């Protein structure tokens, strides 16, 4: 399961994530195709899909367009099935779903796809401050934090690879 975390306190608003996402998803450079958003005002300051294990957007989707891909571990939208009813937008607590005119057929739900074809979210890879974090799963995320933190606990200078 893909796991993406956000730490707004670290965000310097460099918007590199938006630019990378825009490029990755074939936008025109105007930010209209970016699936991660840095907001100038309002909440949340950074919005991006968290790929929830029991995603409320998927539960709310009336047309079966949103589902959890168990293999890739991402919540994904089948644009062809989407009817643009806003139900998913209403459910997402992270305001991570937008409506974008994707194929000239009217507004369709649009959000982070976890960069499936890249294997790792590119915005996270390019985030210079660690405001965006990601791991292959929640277990990996908490495990890494645990390890880094634990490495500081004892004075034994563990070479056991806090980052291993």
């Amino acid at each position: 399961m893909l796991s993406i975390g956000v730490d707004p306190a670290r965000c310097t608003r460099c918007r590199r994530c938006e630019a990378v996402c825009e490029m990755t998803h074939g936008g025109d450079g105007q930010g209209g195709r970016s699936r991660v958003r840095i907001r100038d005002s309002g909440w949340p300051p950074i919005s991006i899909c968290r790929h929830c294990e029991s995603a409320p957007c998927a539960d709310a989707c009336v047309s079966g367009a949103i589902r959890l891909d168990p293999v890739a571990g991402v919540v994904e939208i089948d644009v062809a099935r989407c009817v643009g009813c806003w139900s998913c937008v209403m459910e997402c607590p992270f305001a991570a779903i937008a409506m974008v005119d994707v194929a000239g057929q009217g507004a369709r739900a649009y959000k982070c796809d976890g960069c499936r074809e890249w294997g790792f979210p590119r915005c996270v890879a390019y985030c210079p401050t660690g405001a965006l974090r990601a791991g292959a799963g929640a277990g990996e995320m908490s495990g890494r934090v645990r390890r880094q933190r634990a490495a500081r606990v004892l004075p034994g200078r563990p070479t056991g690879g806090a980052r291993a």
Partner: protein
Amino acid sequence: MNYVVVGSSAAGLSAIHAIRKLDPCGNITVVDEESRPAYSRVLLTHYIAGRVAERDLFLVEEAFYRSYGVRTLLGVRATGLDPGRRQLYLADGRVLDYDSLLVATGARAVVPSWSRTGGVTGLRTREDAVRIRNAALAGRRVVIVGGGPVGVKLACALLELGVTPTLLASSPRILSQVADREASLMLEQHLLRHGVRVRCGAEVGEVAAGPRGTEGVVLSDGSTVPCQLLVVCKGVEPRTELVAGHLAVRRGVLVDNGMRTSVPGVYAAGDVAESPDIWGEGTRVSAIWPHAVKQGKVAGTNMAGGRDLFPGVLPRNAMDVLGMPFVSMGLLHVPAAAGWRSVSRRRGNSYLRLVIRGESVVGAVLLGCPQLAGPIQAAIRKGGRGWEQLVPL
């Protein structure tokens, strides 16, 4: 274990998923009076608008039931129940034994007395939708009776097809149940701008029939609106007739947060159920899709021996009104009591209103600024504090 699920729409299917997750071997039987596998009623207006093909209305294919090892009795109505002997009676005379039963019979359209003539239809089934779409494509004049969400969505759908409908609302404004006054007026203006003829405060007197069928509808003020098809969208009511007399029923079948009815072994979920609201202040029937899915999952989990709770009903609606997104949720009526107030913000076509009780947000109307809907809903669910940070007003 013998599980019987009556109704195979959102709640029923979601319950089957949940049961199978916990109990790979139990016998599951689904009874549904429709002879085809479940389809999405919510998609019907989108079908009329041509956004979804008819085959995409179906939620599952027949193979789904096979792969889940579910016995299907489709096209059969359940007619009676003996909760003491744990038996369900079917219209064809068969009797099903169950260990746990899920009542997910859904709701039916409200049908006014004047509407029992030709040229009048509801919008509840696939057949209704096909009829309306065909009429619209044939260039018939359509009048929609009901200014609620379904009526408005249908109006938008017809407009997309190139038909300009008339929308008759009996209340003084459209969407009176799901929007505040300002949003109603804004939406009405928006519809009018796009050519929808909206008439509020219009009571239907009778249907005017001529030799070639329906010719118009006569309003109580005596005026006549000509039309060839009348679509009644006056809301829905829970289909409780199967269980009435056996289970506690108010508007819907009363259930607790575990979706248990008043009788052991019987659960209810979806549009038929009346369950506690998220504030724990009362019970509500909520005929919306996300609730049906969640309630079905909770019911299924509990039926199979697991433990799950439904967080409670939070009424909400989302729709696209001709390019203008509209979302509302929670309590919208502001009583003239201490502690209640509302705050609102309007910038151009974007309008936001929050209903505040004490320090907590309990309801919201959002027009043209739907991105905030999710965070606000989350805030309402968490108790409503801290909304000031979400929304710079």
